[in-house]
């Protein structure tokens, strides 16, 4: 029952090829809860903690692309240059757990777990992020929309490691909002990311479906009206249309009815913030 701590990406992909059932681990904020409560009994663990390639990030202003390594902690996204480049991601990062969790948790972990309640995932969806994967023999880049395929299911192959994401910056406003049962340390009951790029609105919904949902019909509707035509009435109708595109369920955290309502309110508010910014 070994724990592997590779110090280079090639060593990591070699180890994963030899141990395809190994659990990949960075911050541990999801995985260790399951281990502590005896829900999982790890056999082989491949720690990504020492892979410096996964801890790097950069902002390329000429191409408008931001690269964030899979192990960069949320704490790094909350303030500073990354927060200026990607305000919606910063807002989402600030809602993750507590300071202790944000010092450990990362986009790679959120993508690896792929919970519909993953706080960063609506942002990656609305901002048209791509996910970078590497195996012993190949590399590929997958749009987020093709990466998350179900609740806690993604298209990553067992021999692949998530190395990072590339996120295009937007020309317009972007923001994130989340509803939970309290203000700190909470898993989302509903969340929305709204971004405006080249005067086109994009909106992605979290915790209200089996995957993150891009509300495409609502986007088409609001974009056919044009941003200058948005009034309080149309912003409300936008929220109602977004609600209709959600597919929530009843579970231990909330009801489908409440989630459907909440996601519409959040979408209306974000649109109003976006056009008044």
């Amino acid at each position, binding site marked *: *029952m070994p724990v592997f701590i590779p110090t280079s990406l090639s060593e990591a992909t070699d180890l994963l090829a030899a141990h395809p059932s190994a659990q990949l681990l960075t911050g*541990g904020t999801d995985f260790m809860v399951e281990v502590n409560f005896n829900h999982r009994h*790890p056999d082989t663990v491949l*720690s990504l903690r020492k892979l410096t390639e996964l801890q790097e990030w950069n902002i390329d202003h000429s191409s408008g692309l931001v690269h964030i390594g899979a192990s960069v902690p949320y704490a790094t996204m909350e303030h500073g240059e990354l927060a200026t480049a990607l305000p919606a991601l910063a807002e989402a990062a600030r809602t993750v*757990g507590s300071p*202790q969790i944000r010092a450990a948790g990362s986009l790679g972990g959120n993508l690896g777990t792929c919970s519909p309640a993953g706080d960063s995932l609506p942002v990656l969806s609305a901002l048209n992020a791509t996910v970078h994967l590497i195996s012993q023999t190949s590399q590929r880049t997958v749009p987020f929309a093709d990466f998350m395929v179900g609740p806690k299911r993604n298209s990553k192959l067992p021999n692949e490691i998530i190395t990072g994401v590339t996120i295009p910056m937007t020309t317009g406003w972007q923001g994130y909002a989340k509803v939970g049962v309290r203000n700190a340390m909470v898993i989302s009951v509903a969340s929305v990311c709204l971004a405006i790029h080249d005067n086109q609105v994009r909106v992605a919904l979290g915790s209200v479906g089996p995957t993150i949902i891009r509300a495409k019909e609502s986007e088409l509707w609001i974009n056919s009206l044009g941003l200058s035509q948005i009034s309080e009435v149309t912003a409300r109708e936008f929220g109602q249309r977004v609600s209709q595109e959600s597919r929530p369920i009843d579970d231990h955290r909330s009801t489908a009815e409440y989630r459907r309502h909440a996601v519409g309110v959040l979408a209306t508010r974000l649109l109003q913030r976006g056009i008044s910014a």
Partner: protein
Amino acid sequence: MSQHEYYSLTVNGEQHIVQDAWIGESLLYVLRERLGLPGSKGACEQGECGSCTVYIDNAAVCSCLVLAATVVGSDIATVEGLNDDGSLTDVQEAFVTEGAVQCGFCTPGLVMAVHHLLEHNDSPNEQEVKEALSGNICRCTGYGRIFAAVESVISVRKSTAS
């Protein structure tokens, strides 16, 4: 590198050998049950309460959510190591004098969180203090005495620095 029968951890500057450990053991468990360092407390074991807060390579994290065998080669600091001689730090003194300790279970984690905050920001405002301590749950005090203790440390440090 792989670990089988044993591995070693650097805690408060000292090397500790961890032997015959199960692979899934959290750092919190190893610190308390294998290394005899019970200062970090285990309450929720799911990263909600902050009572197990330690520093790993200077980041304040929940030790219950760290797989112990993955932090070989990292610098781990616990509440026991805050002062080399084992005496109380100014934060700990302030917790005592301001009445910020009742049952005391959350105290080590809070002390770690306060030291971490003040190391990065020597004059945090009220909002910044609340945000920095938002990952540490106390069920006794209602937090008022804890915030008073932090305020006291900030003002004492300022007056002694000037």
